[in-house]
């Protein structure tokens, strides 16, 4: 049994020198504060920017606009912690995840993983990195090759990384199946013979094959039925304890995110507007957007549901092609004043627990903070 995390990176040495972020200068400092994971910093995103070009024309495709999918995002992730990413669809949470996993090239900024800037690595150089950094996708129907047996699906990463002999691979595959709560006898079945929850378990087994350190789970339970959802969440929880995994967990179900996360980052139109330890964020949201998001979540309790006053956000998320000036949330914010449309608020820390928000009129401040 080889332990991938202990092995030295096999790729050719790359210069790890400091890269100068090309993005607009903003305070990064405090983003690292208050990480709840006890370990070392595993991943650091610095001024990550991802724009998608909007082109027009047939031959000469002129770029006529840019979708500001992720716009200057910085955060740190410590080994062993779970960072939840929440926000409405189109806020850039999936794009950010894919930038970190280098499934998309970055427009600018850097991603430092295990002390090494991976944002400029070539495909070949990325291969050893990908052993330690894996993804689990939303749709368990689309993310498994329907023509491959489950054994082959899970063994794929092992083959790609030239891991072990045929016998060792066989043994590892049944270990993995057992680890995710499936029977090793299922190794010769095809994906269609499994239910959604079981397929998601197969996706998790495949991600775990090479002993990754970081797993990015993009809406891993959204496609599953309620009764199955809890099973998969509990499985991810157990695996984290057992294998000392670090997660970036994306979900639009805020209850689920709160349940799994140590820290949560709230995104709106390509920016992190608030990042905080999970419980703190639920008890004391500083950003009006976070407050509105929480208040929109239906409460499965008729009395509480009737008692609370819901803040219903008007309208839709503005287009990320031309985000609003100043604070991007000001068009839907009920506290917005003149400054909000003129000046972009910076992400600053309130208190000393690593609770940061980017707002001109933060809510729920203690006297000391105000």
């Amino acid at each position, binding site marked *: 049994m080889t332990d991938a995390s202990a092995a030295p990176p096999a790729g050719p040495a790359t210069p790890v020198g400091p890269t100068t972020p090309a993005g607009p200068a903003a305070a990064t400092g405090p983003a690292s504060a208050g990480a709840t994971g006890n370990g070392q910093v595993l991943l650091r995103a610095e001024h990550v920017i991802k724009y998608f070009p909007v082109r027009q024309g047939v031959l000469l495709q002129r770029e006529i606009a840019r979708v500001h999918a992720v716009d200057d995002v910085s955060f740190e992730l410590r080994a062993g912690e779970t960072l939840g990413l929440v926000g*409405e*669809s189109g806020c850039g949470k999936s794009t950010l995840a894919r930038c970190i996993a280098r499934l998309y090239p970055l427009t600018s900024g850097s991603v430092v993983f295990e002390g090494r800037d991976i944002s400029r690595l070539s495909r070949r150089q990325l291969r050893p990195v990908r052993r330690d950094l894996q993804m689990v996708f939303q749709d368990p129907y689309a993310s498994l090759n329907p023509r491959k047996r489950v054994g082959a699906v899970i063994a794929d990463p092992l083959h790609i990384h030239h891991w072990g002999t045929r016998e060792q691979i066989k043994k590892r595959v049944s270990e993995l199946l057992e680890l995710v709560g499936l029977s090793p006898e299922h190794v010769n079945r095809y994906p269609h013979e499994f*239910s959604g*929850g*079981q397929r998601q378990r197969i996706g998790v087994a495949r991600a775990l094959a090479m002993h990754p350190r970081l797993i990015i789970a993009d809406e891993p339970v959204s496609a599953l*039925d*309620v*009764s*199955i*959802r*809890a*099973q998969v*969440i*509990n499985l991810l*929880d157990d695996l984290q304890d057992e294998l000392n995994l670090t997660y970036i967990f994306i979900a*639009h*179900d*805020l*209850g*689920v995110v*709160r*349940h799994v996360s140590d820290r949560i980052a709230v995104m709106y139109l390509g920016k992190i507007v608030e990042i905080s330890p999970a*419980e703190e964020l*639920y008890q004391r949201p500083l950003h009006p957007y976070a407050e*509105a*998001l*929480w*208040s*929109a*979540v*239906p*409460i*499965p*309790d*008729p009395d*509480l*549901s*009737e008692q609370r006053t*819901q803040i*219903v*956000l*008007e*309208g*839709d998320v503005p287009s990320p092609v031309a985000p609003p000036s100043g604070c991007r949330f000001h068009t839907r914010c009920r506290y917005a004043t003149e400054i909000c449309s003129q000046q972009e608020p910076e992400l600053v820390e309130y208190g000393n627990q690593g609770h940061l928000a980017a707002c001109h009129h933060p809510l729920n401040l203690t006297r000391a903070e105000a």
Partner: protein
Amino acid sequence: MTAEPLLEVRDLKVSFRTEDGIVRAVDGVSLSLAPGETLGIVGESGSGKSVTMMSVMRLIIDPNARFEGEVRYKGRDLMKLGQDQIRAVRGAGIAMIFQDPMTSLNPVYRVGWQIEEQIRAHEQISRQAAHARAIELLAAVGIPRPAERVNDYPHQFSGGMRQRVMIAMAVSCSPDILIADEPTTALDVTIQAQILNLIKKLRDDFGTAVVLITHDMGVVADIADRIAVMYAGRIIEQGSRRDVFYDARHPYTWGLLGSIARLDRPKPRRLTAIPGLPPSLLRLPPGCAFGPRCPHRFGLCDERPDLLDKAGDGHLDACHLDLRQKEDLRETTIHPELIEEAT
């Protein structure tokens, strides 16, 4: 129930003949809906909640489908109506909105045209008058600048706005009943809150009865008067909203309530998962369909339980446990940790 039911489903059975055998999608469902009432139908995929309501609307046109039972609406059995007669009921009497507002709208027609088409199908009215009504309806469902947007195509609307257009279309002929099949599942929470508020407002303004189909207990907590929980093609619990949330009597409902990661409570260490998988509708287990996954299974469960009103209070359940046992088991099943911590 004080008022005469507006809609009454009696022992509805729907099965599909497939290559692998007969799928019993709906297996003896009885429901009633009073005027102005909101009924929530909760269940997972494959529990038969959509098929039940699609059958009520007679929307399942499949040579391999078999229907039994009665659907009484205004003294008529909808199951016996011809295509022309049912078409007059759809839209004008009972209207339906679906989960995916993109596929329910025709992408090559302007939304105004699609709303007008429906109005003109049911009423003798001029094109101009229908157009004016379409604009009024778009305004009523909260679409800004309705006079301009009426000429837009569906792709020019966001998901939430499209769902509003669907609702405008559904209420265009002032139906008695609005059936909403997972109307907010494809939407973000913030937009979901907008749409649910809109449905509530229309219900209160026009006195429309609403059937809300969902998999999310949270969605019905605020809006439903009564709730029916479905599992494997049957209703396994039915009662008032308070009954189902505060006095749930079926272990499956307990499991559903326990498996929600809730924001209004302290975070539990683990979620209460329901073990196993829903049964295949091709081969339902002989006894209680939930039996194989139920932590409280006992001898009697080999016999299929009927949906009964055991306490005589209008709260029905299909479970063999007696009421006293349920009282004792409920809290430990929904929140095992609360008990752990107390001891």
